[in-house]
């Protein structure tokens, strides 16, 4: 059985985001071999009812977005689609610039983001990870749940992802010249 199919089975069974590192340890393969298999799995899933969602090191399976309106009509779970101005701004910063610290989010927004961050964490739209550069603080990153809400498979599916980040980088450089 091909590695890509084995990975598919594990993702289906886990039904939550799994890291490439974890998959490498399960199958006793290198991370590169896993990444390669994920790429071919993604290819094989084209035209199928299920799809692969990935952000950096984490992957999970979901339904294709072509069927979203049908499932939405069938689901009993409550879908909260209201973000509000503060939520929308903060999510956009985290999507385009994440993982990012609260200080940097506040810097871009010009206001304190503490409570809106808590709110987004509670809703599962973002996740908090340790800041490798500062033990006392956290970095915020998009969750795969957020990707599901947006109907994107990977971060580069966001409109103008590269362009926007290049622009922001350019603005930053100009100040420090």
């Amino acid at each position, binding site marked *: 059985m091909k590695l890509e199919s084995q990975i598919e089975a594990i993702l*289906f069974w886990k*039904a*939550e985001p799994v890291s490439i590192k974890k998959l490498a340890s399960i199958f006793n393969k290198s991370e590169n071999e896993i990444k390669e298999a994920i790429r071919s799995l993604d290819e094989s899933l084209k035209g199928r009812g299920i*799809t692969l*969602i990935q952000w950096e090191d984490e992957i*999970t*399976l*979901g*339904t*294709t*977005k072509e069927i*979203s309106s049908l*499932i939405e009509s069938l*689901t*009993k*779970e409550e*879908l*909260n*689609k*209201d*973000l*509000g*101005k*503060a*939520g*929308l*701004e903060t999510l*956009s*910063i985290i*999507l*385009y610039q994440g993982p990012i610290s609260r200080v940097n989010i506040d*810097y*871009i*927004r*010009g*206001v*304190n983001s*503490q*409570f*809106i961050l*808590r*709110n987004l964490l509670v*809703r599962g739209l973002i996740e908090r990870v340790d800041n490798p550069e500062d033990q006392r603080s956290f970095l915020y990153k998009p969750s795969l749940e957020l*990707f*599901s*809400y*947006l*109907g*994107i*498979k990977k971060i580069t599916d*966001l*409109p*103008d992802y590269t362009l*926007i980040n290049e*622009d*922001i980088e350019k*603005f*930053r450089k*100009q*100040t420090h010249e």
Partner: protein
Amino acid sequence: MSEIFTIKTPEFEGPLDLLLSLVEKRKLFINDISLAKVTDDFISHVQNFEKLPMGEAAKFILVASTLLLIKSRSLLPSLTLFEEEEQDMHDLETRLKIYKRIKDASLNIKDLFGSEMIFSQSQSRPIRPVFSPHESMNLSSLIQAIKDIIEALPKKEMIPKAVIRKVISLEEMIDNLTKRITQGLKMKFSDFSKIHKEERVNVIVGFLAMLELVKQGVILVSQNKMFGDIDMETMNVGVPRYD
């Protein structure tokens, strides 16, 4: 339940949001010229905010003071500023540019959010449980866990009773300045700003007021050396004051 913790300033998410809306209302690009143009609008908005929590008000005032620096520079190009002030001015421009980029992008995010969702396996799918507690889960570790949670619960932010003092208006400052000048005194700008030594913003407002007076031809200003004090005197009353 979702918006409980957000403290909203009237209409605007914060000073950058207000500033951006002012620049965009005039259909301007973000640069020092457009920022100088919207300085007065910004200050008059801030003056109209009746109650702001302390922390939030400080953010608005900080931006206002940087805008005043930018405006002063545009009125008096030879004006010498401290390095830190130069940095603040560049910084504000950069932040506003980044903020605008993010805000524009957020419109796309808004359209995407919830429109064509990807669904994961249903949370209500059946489970066949096997009782398997981990040894770390015992009564004392569980009690410790809940106590830690309670300890970490966010405390409600106290909205300070003291409403933030309004930024002294440009008009008040001009009046004040005119009065002193016409009393025939020749005074140094640093003396003048000592009277209002509350906040840096007041010094700057004072400085700006002075520049306005210069423009109106009411007073004469001379600066003998770089970073030196600025002497002010009225054009019609020539009584010198000796230190």
